[in-house]
């Protein structure tokens, strides 16, 4: 077995130093250290439930080398839905529109949704579909997930318009 090395990174706004094997993926590193909201689905980059924000971009943590995260910033679904305003709004809309059925894809959908909204995501169902195209929901509850992201985008747009008037 390869020797573990120390990896210092910021997770959900907190500086931590964790031990990672050279061949380990970020997903396992997070789960081993208690961030079990990051779900392990296919572990081959196909399903998207392990999606996290890495330096502000949504990536699949199962195909991200843990050791490559040294000095970087990671946000998980739990982190963004508690601490980031866009995440809190989206979380509430996931609940409001019933966007979580069995719940397994939800963490990845939340993070991908937050990434979409942070990057000037417009309330456009087609664009939202494309944005979440790499996240599988096997309950096939896509419509409600798209609804939740769509309405959050609308709310954010309304707010920005309101600020403009002030």
């Amino acid at each position, binding site marked *: *077995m*390869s*020797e573990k*090395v120390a990896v210092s990174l910021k997770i959900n706004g907190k500086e931590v130093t964790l031990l990672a*094997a*050279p*061949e380990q*993926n970020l997903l396992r590193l997070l789960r081993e250290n208690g961030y079990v909201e990051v779900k392990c689905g296919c*572990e*081959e*980059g*196909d399903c*998207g439930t392990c*999606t996290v924000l*890495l330096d502000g*971009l*949504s*990536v*699949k943590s*199962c*195909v*991200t*080398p843990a*050791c*490559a995260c*040294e000095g970087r910033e990671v946000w998980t679904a739990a982190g963004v839905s508690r601490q980031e305003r866009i995440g809190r709004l989206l979380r509430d809309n996931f609940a409001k529109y019933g966007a979580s059925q069995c719940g397994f894809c939800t963490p990845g959908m939340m993070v*991908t949704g937050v*990434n979409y909204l942070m990057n000037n995501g417009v309330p456009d169902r087609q664009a939202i579909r*494309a*944005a979440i*195209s*790499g*996240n599988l929901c096997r309950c096939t509850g896509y419509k409600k997930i798209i609804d939740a992201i769509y309405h959050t985008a609308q709310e954010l747009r309304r707010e920005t318009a309101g600020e403009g008037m002030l």
Partner: protein
Amino acid sequence: MGYQFITADSVPHALELLERYGRDARVICGGTDLMVRLHLKRLPECVFINIRNLEELRYIREEDGMVCIGAGTTLSTLENSLLLLGKAPALFQAAQVFADPNVRHSATVGGNIGNASPSADSAPPLLAFDGQVVVARKDGRRLLPIREFFTGVGRTALEPGELVTEVRFKPNPDSAFVKVGLRNAMAISVVNIAASVDLAQDGTMKDVRIAVGAVAPTPVRAVCAENCLRGRRPEEAVIRQAMDAIQTDIKPITDVRASERYRRIVAENMMRRVVLKACRICENEGGAGR
């Protein structure tokens, strides 16, 4: 010995590490291919040389009429590049349908060609542009035509100690890319194909370059099909001849994604579609074929 992971802090540092570890070294950047192979236990023990932090390998710029793309540039940067949209639509379109948006945040051009999958989506556009690969090593660098870069499934002309630092090509706005996969995202191509056409005033194709993936051990140029089209107009009869001709250019296999027969049918129909799209005759659909 186990695996080792070393992060390079500059290109010279990476080249020094590559020289030191030779055949044991394996360059890693986005990790979207290598991490899957690790998970499937299909990656022998090695020393990962991590080049993810090398910002000097992330750029798209124009130099003397050539488009130069740093090897560490992500597919998501490509799909947001106005330069590529205007001047190299084949590569722009390939980036748009590459894997999925989240993988595109990590996956890089250098990684996609270095991994040398027969179905790599960035390969057909680069081949259709007759591009070059800039390869660096500790004591110098060389330019390799992309046509000579792929040597087999997962094999390239790279030697131990060498690193792909850039791909470059002469762009062509009359170019296009088409892909057929089994789902809309995260699809490994059943067939992917790119065309780049030099159109004369009278509408004849002065030159045409077609490259197709997932139908041979490496992405290949469809030379026989090109010969049928060169000097002629993209008319029905001409395209039908080229559709027959592409069958001698390709050598597909049957695998989990598709049968040989299906790939042959798809390849000729996609060739028709991509040539018409490159000539801007029909932007999206080129008809279903015969």
